[in-house]
């Protein structure tokens, strides 16, 4: 090594600047870029892998039987579906029984005419509007319809406005 600058450019930045990007720099850059792209790709496919495509969860649409089962001015809790079927003078609507605070299951208190959450004390009226407690939103109303053979059907994925009722 009589003249250090002559062997490669790694130890001599001034020399490297003169010649621009060296072959070593270029190969390093494309190698690390390729590794970076592969790492991002791996992260994406791992995320995709961890997101299940098929869920074995209960169906979100269900039949609630004939409208005659529900007397006028009543609130009926369906425990398997976690939904209240409410029948008022104006018609039917379906209210979610899952508290909008942190997801606990609320209970219908007929003597108080309230829906109450046991976890953190939120209270709602039968329309789902909040009376008191930490719940940030009213209980959502689900789409309710009549099937061709005259049964009530509720779709828990479709929420509707509270004034939308099903007249039978």
């Amino acid at each position, binding site marked *: 090594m009589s003249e250090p600058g002559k062997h490669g450019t790694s130890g001599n930045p001034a020399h490297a600047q003169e010649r621009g990007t060296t072959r070593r720099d270029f190969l390093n850059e494309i190698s690390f870029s390729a590794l970076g792209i592969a790492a991002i790709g791996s992260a994406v496919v791992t995320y995709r892998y*961890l997101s299940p495509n098929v*869920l074995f*969860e*209960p169906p979100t649409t269900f039949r609630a039987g004939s409208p005659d089962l529900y007397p006028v001015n009543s609130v009926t809790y369906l425990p398997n579906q976690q939904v209240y079927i409410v029948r008022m003078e104006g018609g039917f609507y379906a209210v979610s029984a899952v508290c909008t605070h*942190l997801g*606990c299951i609320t209970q219908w208190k007929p003597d108080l005419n309230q829906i109450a959450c046991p*976890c953190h004390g939120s209270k709602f009226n039968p329309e789902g509007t909040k009376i008191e407690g930490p719940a940030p939103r009213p209980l959502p109303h689900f789409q309710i319809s009549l099937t061709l053979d005259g049964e009530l059907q509720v779709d828990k994925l479709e929420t509707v406005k509270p004034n939308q009722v099903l007249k039978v």
Partner: protein
Amino acid sequence: MAATFHDALTRLRESQVYKSIFRRGPAVTNRTRSLAVFGNLFLHFLPVKVRQESLRVRATYYLGSITFLLFAILTITGIFLMFYYHPAIPQAYKDMKDLRFVVSNGIFLRNLHRLAAQLMVLAVFAHMFHVFYRGGYKPPHEFNWVVGVILLLVTLFLSYTGYLLPWDQLAFWAITVGTNIISAMPVLGKYVRFQLLGGNVVGENALLRFYVLHCVVFPIVAILFIAIHFWRVQKDGGLTVRDEDGQKEK
């Protein structure tokens, strides 16, 4: 009797097998004692020598050591519990019941695991309060404080993921409420909750995911950071020792 035992020990130390494992003479001089620590994977990240001051009870109240001891108990009892536990619905709840009422000494192991877990959270907090009020987070220990905060989070994650595994009402609602808190996070909340539960509800996928996180992912992370934590104590110049007036000793 004692002489015979001593002879046997000397003979063992001179055997080829012993010498191939511990490549040094008996730890009788300072040099060989140091080599004993350097040459051991499990000891090499601990200090070779310790000041007597830092071993006094009031220097640390051994809170960090207590935390580590609890982690060791949790690892051992956890492995034993895994021999009887299936992370499936409804088998998980039945296995938990079996561990309590059917398996010999199962209730002892389960309670040891459960109580040690609760104690470990307490011990971590006590340790951190002690370090905080002693000023142990100050330079040159500031990075080790950050490692400690990571270990606090890992402890809480371990505690939280373990909470679901008995699959009783308490577990179900705790995880329902907890994951709904996560979904309140802006923008990402919904996605993090979906990934964590492997679905939209706390069900079969959620139980399996929490099991894998609890038994594999978080313990590995914890062991890595515990190793870094211990190693940094030595690299940062040992414990901060204070005299009776609370002044840093030279």
